[in-house]
């Protein structure tokens, strides 16, 4: 069923009808929305969109899973990800050795998600938020420790979580976000991690 051509013309109207029906139609639509406004604006700092899982937000490394293959750094189109050689204690071989781990420069990152998709062991993942503020550009180059921590979602502290749902009449409707039934375990790891960044368990990655 290929496409077919449909010949159309600009709608024609006689001049008098054009003036009357055109003006009345335009005014009627205007008045309709004046009395029944359909607002979709997000009042941003007071409300924020709770994005769904799968949104390409900030990228987090799970160091335990990384096999130092450098694929992520090689595929990065913006050269934001580089490999850093670090001495780590290998559990399997039970000795100290030099391994390469990715670090990221958020000055450059374009959030294309290639690194996450190319990682053969799923050691990188996205968190579904992107509105962070750094005080200077140096801070945007993360160290290996910072790269493993989920950054604090600052807007979530003050704002009201909002979800847009699709609607046939209003397009997008703003509703308050409610946690889904499946209980999401909030990882209480930030303190723990600071003390002992290397000891992060893989299974702890149960984050929304």
């Amino acid at each position: 069923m290929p496409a077919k051509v449909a010949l159309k013309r600009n709608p024609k109207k006689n001049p008098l009808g054009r003036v009357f029906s055109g003006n009345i139609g335009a005014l009627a639509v205007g008045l309709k929305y004046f009395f029944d406004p359909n607002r979709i604006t997000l009042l941003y700092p007071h409300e924020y969109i709770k994005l769904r899982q799968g949104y390409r937000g900030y990228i987090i490394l799970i160091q335990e899973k990384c096999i130092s293959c450098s694929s992520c750094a090689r595929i990065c189109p913006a050269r934001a990800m580089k490999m850093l050689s670090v001495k780590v204690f290998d559990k399997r071989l039970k000795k100290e050795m030099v391994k390469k781990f990715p670090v990221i420069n958020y000055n450059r990152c374009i959030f294309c998600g290639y690194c996450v998709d190319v990682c053969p062991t799923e050691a990188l993942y996205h968190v579904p938020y992107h509105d962070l503020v750094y005080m200077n550009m140096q801070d945007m180059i993360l160290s290996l420790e910072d790269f493993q921590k989920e950054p604090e979602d600052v807007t979530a502290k003050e704002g009201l979580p909002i979800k847009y749902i699709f609607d046939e009449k209003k397009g997008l409707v703003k509703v308050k976000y409610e946690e889904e039934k499946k209980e999401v375990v909030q990882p209480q790891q930030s303190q723990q991690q600071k003390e002992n960044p290397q000891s992060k368990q893989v299974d702890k990655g149960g984050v929304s």
Partner: protein
Amino acid sequence: MASNISSGSVPHLPGMEVTELSKNTYEVYIGPAHPGSGHMRIIVEVDGDVMVRVDPDIGFVHRTMEKLAEGRDWIKNIPLFERMAILDACNITLPYVEAVERLLGTEPPDRARYLRTLLCEINRIASHLYGMGIFGVFLGHSTLYMWAFGDREVFIDLAEQMTGARLTHSYPVFGGVRRDIPDDFPENARKATKYMRNRLNEYAKIFLNNPNIRSRLENVGIMSKNLATELGIVGPNLRASGVRYDVRLNEPYEAYGDVEFEIPVFEEGDSLARAWARVEEIRQSLNIIEQAVDWLEKHPRENFMHEKFWKTAPKLYKDVFSGQIDYAGKYRVKLMPLFASLKVPPGKAFARVEAGRGEMVYYVESDGEDVPYRVRVVSPSFRNVIAFKYLMPGHRLMDLPAIYGSFDYFPPEWDR
């Protein structure tokens, strides 16, 4: 190079162009810092209120993408080219992906073709709405501007659910796509299409049938069929002049050969017809979205990448796709590490698709290395800009926004 530019006894400084004006005319510079136009300048020579010479002066956001592409790996060029027109991201990168696929000799599987078609149409609607919004600003109609941008949000949200990013999707990759649609996507898409159909009627009422706007657009900037062909205009602008050309019709790509839709062609060729052509195209795109969603719902979620890849993929890849790993998003298609150092067999390929603003063309040449030897990008706005030079003279100065806006010109796309 500079010495070639001007001739005669006119004084000349490097970087400066001096032209003598005929009597009783003066020059007006529209842009480059201009509400609505983006970054371009139109140098207009005006005789009274009538334009006599129009010279589009462009390149304010030029980024030399053709050169940059020669230094980047094949896959890294996809996010690069996307930045030409982020509001039309899938359409803009698709011909590049197709050209490279032709060189590689791979064909995307059916599901990937439908997914690409789906995103292309979502992008087309978003792009048309953007263009109409800007058009509204040009004519001083702020309501259309806000409406178009507000309703565009619906389709950007759809695209975000599908790809994980609002604008820079980087969705098609060589041999397939990067994600499958989420479970609730078909339902949302159907709601969005229904909503948009109703809205288009209201757009017509408040904007296109508004006598005020009609008188601005009717019989303004009439481009005959022959002139449009001669100038090589593309997209809805071409079809508004009565030329029956659409890449989706003449050389169906992806799933366009399998879905049913119409190509609206208008005969008038004036600004009003160009605006109507966009509205009708949005209507057809909504049809395509519904059909694509139906198809995707009926068919199983497999074969979204090249078949060979799916068979040899390790278990983890399938786990990620089916959502077994809880911290990673569902229905994501993992890329092969091979993509990072892909080498494309030598050859020359040419690909065209119908992007939102018109025909998008890539010429890709490979010499077997991991970077392209030459990528030539011709974007739709690039081929439309010539129309300003030949169409505007003879019109009044106040017709400039009406013509400019009706062409849906987008400077970053042309400047590359």
